[in-house]
């Protein structure tokens, strides 16, 4: 080995290192000075329990279809952004067919949504975090409904996951929102009017997500649960082949799983509000009222903070105030 003990070279290197360290500290401290686009990551792990992943382990077919659904929204948002929602075939034919091909690939694991929609994630991370938290609640409730739990244990588990969800700063309000008013904003329906096929495909996803609760809850064992969800899976795949473009509004939980909605109204409201938020963001990304990405981001965050997050409950004008929740579900 060669050892160079030249002290001048040593001091030069030390000087360079000091400059490098200063640059690093500046780089890390600069964002702390405040910036509209400086956002926290704020990712939270799911509620940990022995019943985690019961759905994946026991009802693979349904789980695989839910994994396919995870692709759809992100892929849509990314393509709406990149095309400026100006290219109808790029959305209705290309992006929709890619989504259907992914679903048909029978994914056994959920896809990485940041890889699907890197630009959308950078545009509206807080909205994505809101989706992630609500989707984790969705997954937890499916797991609980599939797990081998007594009715009392199931009820307790549902309340625990709801309580965990509501601790998040990204929790959607558990109150019933006025969806028809939310669907009457100046840009509402922009997406479904431009892209009726993809919109009907999205609503087909939401049908599957809300329609399985009551059949799963009523079935006494795993084989019965598999039999109970099969007709819903068949209907869902029929909708994928023939999107229900005649639907005028998204599927609601109490239409397809009224028992679940009656037993857990807060969760049913959260899921309906979640699906409405998906529609609202699709409309914002499709609307010409917001010609720039910055304008779209500002509107997404405005509706999120004003109408959807539970942190806005005290001032939210979209809450239907004459339908109070049972106290224990607040």
């Amino acid at each position, binding site marked *: *080995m*060669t*050892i*160079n*003990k*030249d002290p001048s*070279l*040593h001091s030069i*290197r030390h000087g360079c*290192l000091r400059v*490098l*360290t200063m640059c*690093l*500290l500046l*780089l*890390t401290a600069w*964002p*702390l000075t405040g*910036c509209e*686009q*400086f*956002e*926290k*990551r*704020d*990712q*939270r*792990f*799911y509620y*940990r329990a022995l019943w*985690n*992943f019961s759905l*994946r*382990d026991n009802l693979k077919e349904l789980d695989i279809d839910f994994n396919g659904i995870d*692709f759809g929204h992100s*892929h849509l948002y990314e393509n709406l952004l990149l095309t400026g929602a100006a290219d109808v075939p790029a959305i209705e034919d290309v992006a929709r067919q*890619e989504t259907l*091909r*992914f679903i048909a*690939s029978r*994914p056994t*694991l*959920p*896809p*990485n949504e*940041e*890889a*699907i929609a*890197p*630009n959308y*994630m*950078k*545009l509206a*991370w807080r909205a994505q975090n809101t989706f992630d938290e609500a989707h984790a609640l969705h*997954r937890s409730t499916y797991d609980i409904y599939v797990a081998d739990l007594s009715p009392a244990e199931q009820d307790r588990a549902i309340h625990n996951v709801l309580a965990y969800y509501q601790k998040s700063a990204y929790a959607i309000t558990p109150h019933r929102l006025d969806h028809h008013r939310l669907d009457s904003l100046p840009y509402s329906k922009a997406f479904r009017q431009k892209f009726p096929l993809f919109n009907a495909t999205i609503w087909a996803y939401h049908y599957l997500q809300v329609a399985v609760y009551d059949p799963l809850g009523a079935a006494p064992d795993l084989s019965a649960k598999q039999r109970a969800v099969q007709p819903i899976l068949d209907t869902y795949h029929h909708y994928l082949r023939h999107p229900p473009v005649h639907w005028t509004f998204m599927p609601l939980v109490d239409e397809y799983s009224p028992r679940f909605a009656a037993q857990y109204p807060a969760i049913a409201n959260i899921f309906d509000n979640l699906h409405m938020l998906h529609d609202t963001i699709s409309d914002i990304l499709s609307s010409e009222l917001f010609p720039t*990405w*910055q304008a779209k*981001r500002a509107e997404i965050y405005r509706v999120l903070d004003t109408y959807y997050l539970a942190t806005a409950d005290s001032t939210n004008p979209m809450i239907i105030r004459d339908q109070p929740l049972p106290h224990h579900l607040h």
Partner: protein
Amino acid sequence: MPWMFFIVLTGWLFGPWGTAWALDHDNLDPNRPVQLEDAYPIPHGEIGVEGGVRVNDRRAGSTQLIYQPQILYGAFMNTQIEIQSDIFTDPHTLRGTNQSGDLRLGVLYNFNTETLLWPALAVRVEGIFPTGVRSQGVDTQLTGILTRSFGRLRFHANAGYTILSRPRDVERHGVYRLVGAVSYPIGYPFRFRETLIVDVYTQQSDLIGQRNYTGAEIGIRHQLSSRIVLDMGMGTEFDGPSDRSAINGTIGLSIGF
């Protein structure tokens, strides 16, 4: 200790847990399988157990095996705590700050997620405690981390400086390390199970006057199941002191629960 670690790993792999949810194979941690770290911690509340074996065939001196057990915990929002202890076969040290059996306690804090304007930025502070073979003094490492994506291609940069509290003989009082890397999810839009990572690095040698260790690594992280990520990598050091690596290979596992 490494054997106990692998028994625990095996227990997790083949134990009663079955498959589970999603460990993020796009979240890059040092040594799994390359030395680069990205700016994102594991989610708040997650526990990660990671481990691997590295074979280092050096240009001068004997080939070395390194076991790399590590535990991560998302202790707070945007904050990850790491406990690590590398165990080497002879020779028990290749680097002045890294002795076999040293206990390394680190904290990774993420300032922000990436937005249209800002890259993701993080800082990592690590204390290296002299619990290992012929180790002395508590060393301190500070690393700035940046992640920026362009489409699906993610660029990462690490710039770190390690201060030795009790350097020996002609050892430096501190050494710097710079790493640049790209990662890319393979298989989009039909498959989301693999991430390819390539990095280049230069690290100041431990002894005053020696050239930097400069090399490159390539690795892949594969989502084996929802809870388990398998990684493999290899690399070489093409410039540096005579004991630099001719070729090295790594295989490891990450388990999140």
